[in-house]
């Protein structure tokens, strides 16, 4: 494991738990991590490329991490998305940083 990696847990849309390592030094976000590990089929996640404009990367944050605060565009997109819960976030807006060590998220259903 690279010293710049953190361990996170992602539960895919079939409920399968994946314990994976995510680099903190590659300017990646959570949606991109999911794509790089192919935990959701291509074309069903990150459709807009990561602009908070499609909600295909919606996930539920299960752990108690201090995440970056939601910006207006993410909040607005989530207000139009389906299957939204109180702990919903858009994966593309969560930058992978060392503070996220141990993060657990669950991918929201495809819609």
């Amino acid at each position, binding site marked *: 494991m690279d010293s710049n990696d953190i361990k996170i847990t992602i539960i895919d849309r079939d409920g399968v738990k994946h314990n994976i390592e995510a680099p903190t030094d590659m300017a990646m976000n959570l949606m991109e991590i999911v794509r790089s590990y192919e935990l959701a*089929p*291509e*074309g*069903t996640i990150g*459709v*807009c490329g990561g*602009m908070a*404009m*499609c909600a*295909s990367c919606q996930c539920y944050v299960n752990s108690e991490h201090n995440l970056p605060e939601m910006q*207006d*565009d993410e*909040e*607005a*997109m989530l*207000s*139009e*998305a*389906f*299957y939204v819960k109180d702990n919903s976030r858009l994966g593309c807006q969560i930058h992978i940083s060392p503070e996220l060590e141990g993060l657990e998220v669950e991918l929201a259903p495809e*819609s």
Partner: protein
Amino acid sequence: MITTDIIIIGAGPTGLFAVFEAGLLKLKCHLIDALPQPGGQCSEIYPKKPIYDIPAYPEILAGDLTDKLLEQCKQFEPGFTLGERAETIDKQEDGTFIVTTNKGTKHQAPVVAIASGLGSFEPRKPLLGNITDFEDKGVEYIIKEPELYRDKNVIIAGGGDSALDWSIFLADVAKSVTLVHRRNEFRGHLDSVEKVQELKNSGKISLITPAEITAIIGDDKVEALEITKKDEAPFTIETDHFIPLFGLSPKLGPIANWGLEIEKNAIKVNNALDYQTNIPGIFAIGDGNIYPGKLKLILCGFHEATLMCQAAYKIINPGKRYVLKYTTVAGIDGFDGTRKEAPKAVVKTID
């Protein structure tokens, strides 16, 4: 029947550039797209966002890229079938293909290029159990014919530009317009938000926020909706129409049943040669194809479109000689009779 040389499915940047490259080879194109306007994702999802990796454009807005591609291919007079989804493909005995849309429009050509990106954009349907029973019986996800709503009661749900814009438009047409959104804040152009505020103040639009539609009520058509405001008991409002506007999401759709090899929601092609699929005469270019090392970039789509056109030329003109010409040298002869060419060099004696 619309006949052409290349049927292009998808009018995004790759499809539009293919029109230009085909035109240089004197091949005519006709584009089919499920969206009502050309540009694909660039116009539908992010027209006002900048792109930084189009060669020679340090920065260009996605909407402007679409405009420039349309301008670049204009003299090759592409045909368009917009707002219709390519549904079926049938190979004819003479080797040509007939592509039929969901509205029954037929197109015939010897070559088909699928430039469909992530797929055709389909409306996102709210999670109401019986909503499909009411489709076209009072529930419409896309407004095609505004006159349908004249003197009718209409409830629109959503918080983006289309919900705002249609509320404003229908305020003058419908008997009543009610806009329901999950939050008090709307995500739209400032002037649309202000206009809705104005119409609300003058009583032309009723606004129900923060609230959600929680049930559709009716026998064989929409008669009323159950609306639930946050932390309150549900209530019902009578209505003739329910228009949920929650954006569009791309789906591979009927193309998945065309007998093409599909991998990871994309169409497998031969990238060593010409981006042809497993069916000779059908190509896939741009974000919708897959091959080892594939990158979903507009600039890669341009390259793929160019090579596809060379292969299409050989199919359409078997055995005919061809040599690559440079536009700077040969100029461009449009199908509309226009000609673009480099100015002639000035040869003059210096005394």
